[in-house]
């Protein structure tokens, strides 16, 4: 039994591993090599000179990186606060409504994110769904909140909500009711139950949810382009520009590498601390 398991495990992992090696690991290696090539070359046969990394500091690209990381951090923090009560409801309170909520949130994921962001432009713009109707009915008008940093953060929160909500609900479901009940019987306040029991026991869900939303938000492009209208440039935007208009593949690769290293370190750190079998419900 043991031996067949071992052989079958390896065999059945093969197709996916092959896809990931050929189309995920190999491209990363290419990016890494391109990033040390001299500026504006299109092949890998030059002498490496690391000049693209110098450009990152000289020409202020680090500002885009800081903006992206800052906005990702802000949206992750906001998402934690927004999603916690809802995830608690899904895990402990709602019963059948949890299914309705899950289906509603998952279905929204299937609509391309740029259509949903464009919908927010139509909703929030001057003469849009909200301002237009308000002005027609009451005469009150307000300036459009579009094209600024807050609305970009709002867009990130909106798009990545499911990626925080579901891991969080899964994490809270792992908190045993008996433990909370015991704490309450012994006189713990709500705040104590939250900080001493709920948060530590739901930690795997919190870690996965926060990492997922932070990482995805840090590499996001559409929010700042569609909602933010270039109020600030996201790092992903700089990367895209370097590849397309700039025709500077080594620069784009160097910027990508910096983002990849930051994100990769975070992802590896988080993933190594979480027992996937426990979260996904393995029985033995």
């Amino acid at each position, binding site marked *: 039994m043991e031996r067949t*398991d*071992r052989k*079958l*495990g*390896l065999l*059945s*992992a*093969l197709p*996916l591993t092959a*896809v*990931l090696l050929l*189309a*995920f690991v190999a*491209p990363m290696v*290419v*990016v890494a090599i391109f990033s040390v090539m001299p500026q504006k070359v*299109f*092949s890998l046969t030059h002498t490496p000179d690391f000049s693209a990394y110098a450009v990152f500091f000289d020409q202020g690209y680090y500002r885009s990186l800081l903006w992206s990381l800052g906005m990702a951090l802000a949206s992750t923090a906001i998402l934690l606060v927004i999603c916690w009560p*809802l995830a608690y*409801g899904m895990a*402990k309170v*709602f019963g059948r409504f949890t299914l309705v*909520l899950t289906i*509603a949130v998952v279905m929204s*994921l*299937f*609509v*391309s994110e*740029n*259509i949903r*962001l*464009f*919908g927010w432009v*139509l*909703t929030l713009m001057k*003469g849009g*769904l909200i*301002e*237009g*109707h308000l002005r027609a009915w009451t005469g009150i008008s307000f300036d459009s909140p579009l094209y600024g940093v807050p609305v970009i953060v709002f867009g990130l929160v*909106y798009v990545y*909500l499911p990626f925080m909500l579901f891991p969080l609900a899964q994490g809270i479901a792992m908190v045993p009711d008996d433990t909370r*009940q015991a704490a309450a019987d012994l006189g713990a306040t709500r705040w104590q139950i939250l900080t001493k029991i709920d948060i530590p026991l739901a930690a795997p869900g919190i870690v996965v949810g926060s990492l997922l939303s932070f990482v*995805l938000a*840090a*590499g996001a492009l*559409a929010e700042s*382009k*569609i909602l933010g209208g270039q109020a600030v440039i996201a790092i992903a935007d700089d990367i*895209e520009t370097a*590849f397309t208009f700039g025709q500077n593949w080594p620069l784009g690769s160097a910027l990508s590498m910096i*983002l990849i290293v930051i*994100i990769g370190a975070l992802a*590896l750190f988080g*993933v190594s601390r979480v027992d*996937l*079998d426990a979260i*996904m419900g393995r*029985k*033995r």
Partner: protein
Amino acid sequence: MPASRSTRIVLFVYGLLIIALLYLPLVSVGFASVSRARYLSFPIRKYSTKWYTSALESSTVTDLFWTSLTVAAIVTVVSVVIAFFGALAFARYNWRYRTTFQKLILLPIFFPQTVLGLALLMWFNSLGIIPTWKTAVVAHLVWIAPIATLIVAIRAYSFDPALEEAARDMGANTGTILRLITLPLLLPGLVSAGLFAFLLSWGNFPLSLFTTGADSTLPEWLYAKMVSGYSPLVPTLGIMSVAGSFVIIMVALAVAWLMRANRESKAVQN
């Protein structure tokens, strides 16, 4: 410690509010798609379906739909096959590198898709492959096959390995076990993985953006038009794309319902 009645009501209202906010932008897109004016402004004064007519008559739109559909269909079939085996390696078999494998397949999900798309573009370029919709299929697979695997793995966790062991003890070989025991047990997971794969591919744009070459998918075209200026066709095609997803979900739910009804009627006959 059951929640009090007032907590329940507050949380319930909060949940409804979040759902409403999630779908509010689609309401705006929906209204915009039936506005008659070339330059949109709310409240809408004249409604018309002329943009739908011109979208349906346009050959560009037909091409966009076919490209998106072809990519999504191929991605679905390949992802489901990969996910079937991948999920067994992920959840069922005890083998040496199982935890490493689990972590490897999470990495592409934890990865900015725009950067992945660009990395693939450079990779195809250095291999001398000219990007078309076929390279987009590969790009989608890198992201979607791991997600499909996770979905099937959830199902694989819940089945009892003793069923397979019993079959093996009675002399069934591995192929027979997979076909007669494992496949039927994982079928619900495979169906939802297929549904996810199709819909995620259908709606994806950051990966398609750099890997389709001269071809274009629907979300890609919409993005190009949104960034470069307004076209009255954007809301219309947006709604048509959403309607496409909706039809697929309804068909899948109907099939699932029919399968269950069929099984129950068989059980009654027995």
